[in-house]
């Protein structure tokens, strides 16, 4: 069965790009438009194997989403990869402390994304 990846980005273009790249590599994908939507989608999809998450989003950004996930402690082993235009070391440290497993700067390279997804989901259902 295909592993499910939750894509969180306020840009429909980026969600579409990610969905195509991951879909072609055999992943199933679902989408959320911000952190609030992502929390809801995770609760409704317990089989999510990985999250790819933007940082700069309206309503709830990626760092706040990470911190909420950590605070609630429901999915401590769910790998979260940040995908963003940001390359600020302080922001990366913040994400790392909040539990992110990696940081990728846009625009993404499909091969690198897929290789990372394969690596991060190796031990997830």
């Amino acid at each position, binding site marked *: 069965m295909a592993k499910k990846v939750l894509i969180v980005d306020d*840009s429909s273009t980026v969600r579409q790009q990610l969905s195509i790249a991951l879909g072609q590599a055999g992943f199933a994908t679902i989408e959320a438009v911000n952190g609030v939507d992502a929390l809801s989608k995770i609760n409704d999809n317990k089989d999510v194997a990985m999250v790819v998450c933007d940082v700069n989003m*309206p309503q709830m950004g990626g760092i706040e989403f990470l911190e909420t996930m950590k605070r609630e402690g429901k999915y401590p082993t769910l790998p979260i990869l940040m995908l963003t235009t940001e390359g600020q070391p302080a922001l990366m440290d913040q994400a790392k402390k909040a539990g992110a497993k990696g940081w990728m700067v846009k625009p993404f390279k499909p091969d690198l994304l897929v290789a990372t997804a394969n690596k991060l989901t190796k031990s997830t259902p």
Partner: protein
Amino acid sequence: MTTLVPHPEAMIRLHLVECCVALFQDYGSAMQATPEPSTVHDLAGIIGFTGAHIGGTLSLVSSSSLLARTRPTAPVNTAEVEDWAAELANQLLGRLKNRLLQHNVQIQLSTPVAVAGRHLELRTLSTPLYFHSELGRLAVWFDVRFDEDFVAEQIQEGQSVAEGELELF
């Protein structure tokens, strides 16, 4: 001893030109700076930013046909092109933000918006940067205000992950 950049706005505009060329190159378009103005504007991606002693707005303005042709997947409706205009503005300012880190300047980005309309004209005080490629022309307005305490340092280490690269934790 720290050496300061004497003309920060000129430095930022130079970075912005390089960032814009590199951004469109990543999306398959050989965009180049040009002194010739672009005139056909029906779509803009606009994003604000703020930081210590600095703030402003970046506006990327062009034709929807050019923007549609640089979109990674062909758009099926105007909403997708508008989304792409906003995302391009976001990615352009993101690149600039990462360059500014090298000057010890930190800015925070707002979320981008797209504005569509016939014969769009921006009424701003700044001078736009113009670009052209085989796909057409675009303009970038960079409206920035500094207060008197603003400083930008000469280049040092800043961004730890480059565009398209990954760091695993």
